[in-house]
């Protein structure tokens, strides 16, 4: 056989293999992945293009049919609802609808209704929405009636140098587009980092893994107000980094400062990647190892195995993390306030809502809620887009009711070194808000050009017993957080179950409803609470405890719902069907089969709900200010931050921040201890 013939013979089986099993190496797979990318992207559009059209046609036809025979269709929907809803599901659905109607929809409507009204005529109108597009900071392309031309206020200047400082900022396309592009970049970075770390921790053993698993959750620990001051203390012109590398060590030839949207992207990416990590880790841990083993037996290894088997199986968790990241990025108000000094940071939707509502003029501008509606639409569009894309790439892995012993491999010495070289700087940056809050809480005095405080003290913590309400707020915060989390777990797993397992009219609407709270600017809901409920049994004067708890329940609900939904998507429905075939009722199946199967995911979500509940800002501030005796810690952190005298200011407020973080950690640890070994799948502790 000639060389040419033998090469030809070798080539033929390879072609077959590429189409079927592909037993090749990492390099080849990576190359084929990228070289094949354009074709696959193109084929997605060409292949799937007719789908939306047909779906649209179907929906239109269905809508027309509904209009033609409304009574018939309604009866059919009612009959379907009755068929799908057993007693448990009906109770679950009713409870969710009541809670969300009372504590989300009504307060929202009470504020938003003004956005759809023309105040001069009192008639329904979109005037507030139209006017937004005349604001050059929201929409940067403006028509000049005098010159008859369009003027652009887009600013693409990103790097500036002057004095001893180099500043880096983002592109400025006005608040609407800025919010979208920032959220897309942040979600991409968070998914890359989160999936990378989740995969490494789930599949490799290396020295210090237990610590790394724990520390990777820390970036989600939030400390409102003081965290912001901490970020400035580290990243500012005279912050820790510049004072260390420029002023003290003279390593850098100039100071560097991130400003505006670049700073927001940096801070958000490094805090939100933990959300993806947490959810992706749960998914990686629940993958049936036999599936990967089968793939390996068939020749898939390395990146090919990861891309074609592991990643699709982990997609529900990654999707949940990505959705939360996208929405939280668009909704984030904290970062724009931190970097307010650079005008670009003010050009985000969340900040524009805040600006319209909170000011000394004493009036609430209806434009604020109008921007909030736009923000909600974008956030939910992102949610639907991510869910649709991820749904196309996800598969049920079949956990079969148990937790798998993970397929872990030992990382080589070189690999471990490389991992830590990436991990340590990244974690250091990600933990700036948390570290700086702890440092600030022990600071006596801190000079401008000093890397660390000049003097240290424990005395700042005296603020905890100086004001009785401050100490009491710690207990209240814990009670509100735990109570809200218990309700969230009960209702959240119910909601996820209904969405994932039942087919009833309005299911998609329910899905959007229970996910929307994190996409709604808190200040809009909080204002709605005040307007609607103050001086009613829900919110008696001086007693905001109940409303605060319900506010946390509703606003932090989506974390648990999305996690539980991801859990259900990873669990084959056949297990529940088997249970029912064996004679169990739907109720018994839900309690004895479904809940235990998704328990780990629900707990992962509920921890996020708890952590974000105790650090909730908007309703805590507004409701706390008129019921100080029952106000939570976030309210008192702000009070202490703005207070004068020897117990006022950022160093004392940082003590409350540190206590809040400790509390969050204690609850996470207790939960883990209770659940023993199973918790490794939740938080890695």
């Amino acid at each position, binding site marked *: 056989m000639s060389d040419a013939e033998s090469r030809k013979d070798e080539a033929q089986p390879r072609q077959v293999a590429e189409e079927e099993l592909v037993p090749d190496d990492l390099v080849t797979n990576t190359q084929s992945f990228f070289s094949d990318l354009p074709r696959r992207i193109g084929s997605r559009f060409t292949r799937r293009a007719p789908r939306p059209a047909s779906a649209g046609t179907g929906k239109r036809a269905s809508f027309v049919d509904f209009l033609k025979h409304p009574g018939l269709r309604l009866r059919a929907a009612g009959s379907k609802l009755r068929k799908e809803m057993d007693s448990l599901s009906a109770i679950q659905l009713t409870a969710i609808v009541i809670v969300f109607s009372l504590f989300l929809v009504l307060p929202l409507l009470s504020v938003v209704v003004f956005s759809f009204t023309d105040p001069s005529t009192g008639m329904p109108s979109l005037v507030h929405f139209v*006017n937004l597009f*005349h*604001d050059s*900071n929201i929409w940067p392309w403006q028509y000049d009636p005098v010159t008859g031309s369009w003027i652009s206020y887009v600013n693409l200047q990103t790097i500036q140098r002057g*004095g001893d*400082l180099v*500043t880096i900022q983002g592109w400025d396309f006005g608040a609407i587009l800025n919010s979208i592009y920032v959220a897309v970049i942040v979600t991409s970075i968070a998914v890359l980092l989160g999936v990378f770390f989740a995969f490494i921790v789930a599949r490799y053993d290396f020295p210090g893994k237990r610590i790394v698993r724990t520390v990777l959750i820390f970036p989600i620990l939030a400390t409102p107000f003081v965290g912001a001051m901490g970020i*400035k*203390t580290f990243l*500012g*012109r*005279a*912050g820790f980094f510049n004072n260390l590398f420029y002023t003290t060590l003279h390593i850098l030839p100039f100071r560097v400062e991130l400003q505006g949207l670049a700073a927001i992207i940096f801070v958000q990416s490094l805090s939100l990647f933990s959300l993806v990590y947490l959810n992706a880790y749960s998914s990686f841990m629940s993958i049936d190892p036999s599936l990967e083993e089968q793939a390996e037996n068939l020749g898939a290894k390395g990146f090919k195995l990861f891309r074609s088997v592991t990643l699709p199986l982990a997609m529900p968790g990654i999707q949940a993390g990505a959705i939360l990241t996208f929405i939280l990025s668009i909704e984030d108000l904290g970062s724009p306030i931190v970097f*307010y*000094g650079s*005008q670009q940071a003010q050009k985000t939707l969340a900040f524009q809502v805040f600006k319209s509502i*909170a*000011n*000394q*003029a*004493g009036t609430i*501008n*209806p434009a604020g809620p109008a921007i909030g509606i736009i923000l909600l639409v974008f956030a939910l569009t992102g949610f639907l887009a991510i869910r649709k894309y991820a749904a196309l790439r996800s598969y049920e892995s079949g956990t*079969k009711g*148990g937790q*798998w012993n993970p397929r872990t491999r030992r990382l080589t010495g070189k690999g471990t070194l490389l991992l830590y070289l990436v991990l340590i700087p990244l974690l250091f940056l990600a933990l700036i808000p948390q570290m700086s809050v702890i440092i600030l809480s022990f600071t006596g*005095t801190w*000079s*401008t*050009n000093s890397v660390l405080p*000049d003097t240290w003290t424990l005395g700042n913590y005296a603020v905890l017993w100086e*004001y009785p*309400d401050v100490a009491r707020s710690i*207990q209240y915060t814990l*009670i509100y957080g*735990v*109570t809200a989390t218990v309700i969230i*777990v009960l209702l959240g797993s119910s909601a996820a179950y209904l969405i994932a397992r039942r087919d009833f009219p309005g299911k998609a609407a329910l899905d959007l409803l229970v996910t929307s709270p994190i996409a709604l600017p808190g200040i809009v809901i909080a204002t709605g609470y*005040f307007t609607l409920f103050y*001086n009613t049994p829900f919110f*008696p004067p*001086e007693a905001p*405890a109940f409303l605060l708890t319900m506010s946390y329940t509703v606003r932090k609900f989506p974390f648990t719902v999305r996690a539980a939904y991801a859990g259900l998507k990873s669990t084959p429905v056949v297990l529940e069907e088997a249970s029912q075939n064996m004679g169990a009722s739907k109720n018994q199946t839900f*309690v004895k089969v479904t*809940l*235990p199967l998704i328990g780990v995911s629900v707990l992962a979500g509920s921890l996020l709900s708890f952590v974000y509940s105790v650090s909730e800002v908007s309703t805590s501030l507004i409701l706390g*200010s*008129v*019921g*100080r005796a029952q106000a939570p810690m976030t309210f*008192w952190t702000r009070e202490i931050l703005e*207070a*004068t*005298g*020897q*117990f006022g*200011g950022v160093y004392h407020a940082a003590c409350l921040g540190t206590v809040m973080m400790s509390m969050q950690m204690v609850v996470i640890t207790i939960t883990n201890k*209770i659940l023993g*070994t*199973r918790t490794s799948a939740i938080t890695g502790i």
Partner: protein
Amino acid sequence: MSEMEATRNTKTILVAVVVVALVAVGGYIGLGLLGNIGPTTTGTTTTTTTSSGETLTVITRHDVSILSVYEPAFLASDFAVSHGITKILWKTPSQEFWEALIDTGQIDVCWGGGPTLFDQLMRDGLLSALNSTLMQTVAARVNNSIAGADMKRYDSHGNLVWIAAAISSFGFTVNDAFLTDYTLPTPSTWTDLAQPIYGSLLPTIPTIAMGNAPDTTSNTRIYEIITQGLGWDAGWSTLGRMAGSSNIYSGSVETQAAAELGQVGISMSIDFYGYLSQYKNPDCHYVVPEGQTIVNGDPIAISNITSHEDLAEGFVDFVLSPYGQSLWLHPNIRRMPVLRAAFDQPLGSQAQDLYAVFNQTIKTVGIDFNDTLSLEINTAFIYYFESVFTDAHTELVNCWTTIVTEYYAGHLNVSQMNMFADMMGLTVTILDPKTSLSEKFTIDYAREINNNMIYDTVYAGQVQDLWTIAAKNHYNDVLSQVQALLP
């Protein structure tokens, strides 16, 4: 199945849920117990009669350090004891909720938050006339004005509606390390801040921190004083230069923090925050501008729909008594009383440093401030500031940077630099959305549109958008003119 761990079962989940629920139930029981120990949560009327006595409700912007000193002192006073007052309910909402709360009839006393807020309450008819003999006696203890600032306010019918209960001075906090790093001079007056030297590090390093007017009443008062003291056009020109050399921050706390953290060299400051920064960062010190001291009287007033006016008057009397005034000098507050007699009290004798500052403040001839004008144009004023400085900041800084850079490069002489700076600071002209007339932002125009800016949010939004676009185009136009002159 060897790969399955045996631990997955319902029990663990149930145990977790039960434990968490127990914690919650325990918490609620604890809450109940705390409720019994701590402040009661009953009461839906203004002055609530609890089982043990009367409750006074005070709405305030004062912070916890002040409230925690005043509450026990007042409750221990003869007046409180004789009238059975056993509790003060403090309400501390942000400004946008004040009127709604007062309207509920639950507020007795309004205290602290600056003259602008109280003038707005007066304008909307929410403050009671202080005409009783007791209130007239109390008012007589307070000077009519201090350093040019009114300490009492009368409504259009000549009724006294608020009295200053404390004074604050305005100046700037200077970060010496920052100024030394960049060899910048220490400013001593407001007008110093308009000098091009403070823009010499632009565009990357702004040297001043200013608060956005709609977000900070104290900084707004500074801007009002500058436009009143220097004249409308020169004042706005000065503010334009200052804003060009500044980072603009939201509230007064953030503005203050900028100097404290070394982000900038100078920040607009209210005195007590200035002294706090001085303590926390040894590089900082508070500067009282020479001959341009601005003093604010921080008001106390009574709600016009309180049903317990006698108790409210008793509280006002207490706060404005020499003893009540001396509480401002408590080590945990250290703010300036409005009565000199406070320094004769035991707490006063321990605060001789504050006495020196007090004497310096009241002797200083400050800028004579027209409160009536401020009230007539305040809302238009703050929104104009936001529109042309905060919302057009990128274009403003570009323009000012070019003027300053070319001045220091020798391409512009002093008079050219001043000419372009003045041009940059000119107030802008827009087509008014209601009248379609071309309107420059003058005092008269501000006065004319002020009510619409308060009550017609659509109009206010449209006007702000127009001001911002006009300002951006104006700054870009001045920039083009400067660039046209360059070699």
